[in-house]
């Protein structure tokens, strides 16, 4: 498949299903690549996939979860191949496609599993602070509302693109009480809430997270006021980076691809920030409720 076709397909499925995470879309696209390419060796396949991944990264969408999900997909192919040594390449392909479907299904179920894990933490009368818009958080809060729990959600506007306003809209549609607050009001509301609950674009090997800018500020405030800081995220967002500070984050994560002044990064507002593991109380994933230090353990087991 041509690079442009790959990008188009990727952008199309994101457009079609607004609820789909970029990571899932990337895996879907890669499965299509696997289906369409003819290969004679596994090595060749891996190379094709790798070039497809790099074109996905150039598509202008946030790349954090695309990176981690595609890395997981490559693992999925290379770890499976030793078992398939005595098969022909056609057989290998069908086996992989079948397994790919179950893999994808597992990943898509992730959000429900996370919501279920988080349920006991949302109780009647509690007040929750969240940042910007996150699909996992939305799903979790909706599930809690369906269970007839009464709670109040504070959402920051996230002034870069006002995603928070969209979040509030969606919460209101599900009859959840919520308030839109300014990004600068995080410190002000912190004393009145019970806990913070945010999503993540990526989870680092240290157990820290990469998320929409402002998350780190929120985590610092929460730590200062001794409020629990919960992160809800799917496990395909685990990636093998180990940033020590904000500068360590790759520029491709921080800055939008299609901005015009690419050479002068320092003048552009970064899209994401890094929240170190010490500020995080628990990470809810489809693998269970983890402490930040459990993340590296999971990654070591895999790679």
């Amino acid at each position, binding site marked *: 498949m041509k690079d442009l076709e790959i990008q188009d397909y990727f952008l199309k499925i994101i457009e079609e299903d607004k609820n789909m995470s970029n990571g899932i879309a990337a895996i879907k696209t890669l499965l299509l690549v696997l289906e369409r390419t003819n290969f004679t060796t596994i090595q060749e396949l891996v190379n094709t996939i790798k070039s497809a991944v790099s074109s996905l990264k150039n598509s202008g969408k946030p790349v954090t979860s695309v990176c981690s999900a595609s890395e*997981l997909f490559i*693992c*999925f192919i290379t*770890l*499976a191949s030793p078992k398939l040594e005595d098969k022909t390449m056609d057989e290998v392909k069908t086996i992989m496609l*079948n*397994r790919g479907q*179950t*893999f994808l299904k*597992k*990943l898509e179920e992730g959000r429900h599993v996370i919501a279920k894990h988080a349920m*006991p*933490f949302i*109780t009647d009368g*509690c007040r929750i602070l969240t940042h910007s818009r996150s699909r996992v958080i939305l799903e979790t809060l909706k599930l809690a509302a369906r269970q007839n729990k009464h709670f109040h959600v504070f959402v920051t506007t996230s002034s870069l693109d006002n995603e928070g306003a969209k979040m509030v809209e969606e919460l209101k549609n599900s009859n959840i009480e919520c308030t839109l607050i300014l990004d600068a009001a995080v410190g002000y509301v912190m004393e009145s809430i*019970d806990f913070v609950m945010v999503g993540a674009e990526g989870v680092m090997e240290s157990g820290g997270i990469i998320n929409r800018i402002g998350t780190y500020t929120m985590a610092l405030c929460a730590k200062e006021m001794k409020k629990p800081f919960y992160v809800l995220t799917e*496990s395909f967002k*685990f990636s093998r980076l180990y940033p020590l500070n904000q500068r360590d984050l790759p520029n491709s994560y921080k800055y939008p691809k299609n901005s015009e002044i690419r050479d002068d990064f320092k003048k552009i507002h970064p899209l994401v920030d890094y929240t170190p593991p010490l500020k995080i*109380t*628990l990470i809810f994933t*489809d*693998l*269970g*409720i*983890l*402490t*930040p*230090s*459990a993340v590296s*353990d*999971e*990654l070591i*087991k*895999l790679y």
Partner: protein
Amino acid sequence: MIEGNKYLTKELAQLIHDVKVGKLVGSYPISKYMLENLLTIVNSTTWKTADDLMIIVRETGKILINALPQEAILANIVRRCLKIIREEYDELNMPQQAKQIDDSQAASLQKLVTQNSERSEKRSDYTNSHVDLRENLINHLNEIENELHLSHDNLSQQAPEHVHSSEIILTLGYSKSVEKFLKSVPKERKFEVVVAECAPSCRGHMLAQSLANAKIDATVIPDSAIFAYMSRVNKVIIGTHSVLADGGLRAASGAFTVALAAKHHSTPVIVLVPMFKLSPVFLCNFEQEAFNLVGNTESVLPYNTRVSNAIKAYAPVFDYVPPELITLFISSNGGYTPSYVYRLLTETYHPDDYELK
């Protein structure tokens, strides 16, 4: 609600009764009794397949959780037992794959990537019957009983590594593990133990008495003096009721005070936990069902005083101590940090059994 439940045996009712009236106290006797109970269930002829047995064990667990929600150990023993049934069954059912399964029980990223669709579904089927299952289970449960029996000894064997000459050690209330631990320090080492009495039950007095009888220098202080005393303490060693999944403690009320004071003075806090006290439970919020208990307030404010009808009195039994205040856990097989608890949990219990309800 419990009455009429066919899984409620006489022994089980006896256990619940004994714990409720305070005849059976302390985690070790309770867990021992529980394990014996489970052995009787395994021994009985009412089950044919592992699946049947797991249902009986799980129902037993449910009865206990409903009747005695605060005794986390009971549920832990049930979880442990379920895991053993799974293990033994898997070993009999697919001996050649048993080793592979061993390290892949918990959901992990690796499993997500390498799984084969057919096998993952087969794993939840426990309906084949095996002749050897009963015997293997009994052997394995006996091993666990042995482990339970030795857990205090194994714990206290490590005492010489942690307590040194002329140290001052602070502890709170009365814990069997702490008592044994301190008594196993070699006699040549002279050290001092400061016991916070842990009002209103003042079980600390018992510990101090017992230590003094063993010729260990013991001092009793009121709980209000914990902070003042902390500056000269070298180490805090406490027991706990149970350890939660995040590495926090559910310990005797007063433990949080001790841990905070220790943090202020950068004094290490060591917690003694036999393995069966690890619970895969999170503290979601402080109003959580059965997290805390309120005890008798007679010793806080006697009922026959003039003011007692005008004011309220509370005597909560437990404290939650967050993991960041704890330096080290010492269990039967060595020391570990709070961040490692999650790992021990996945090794000890099967994730499907975390929720018994």
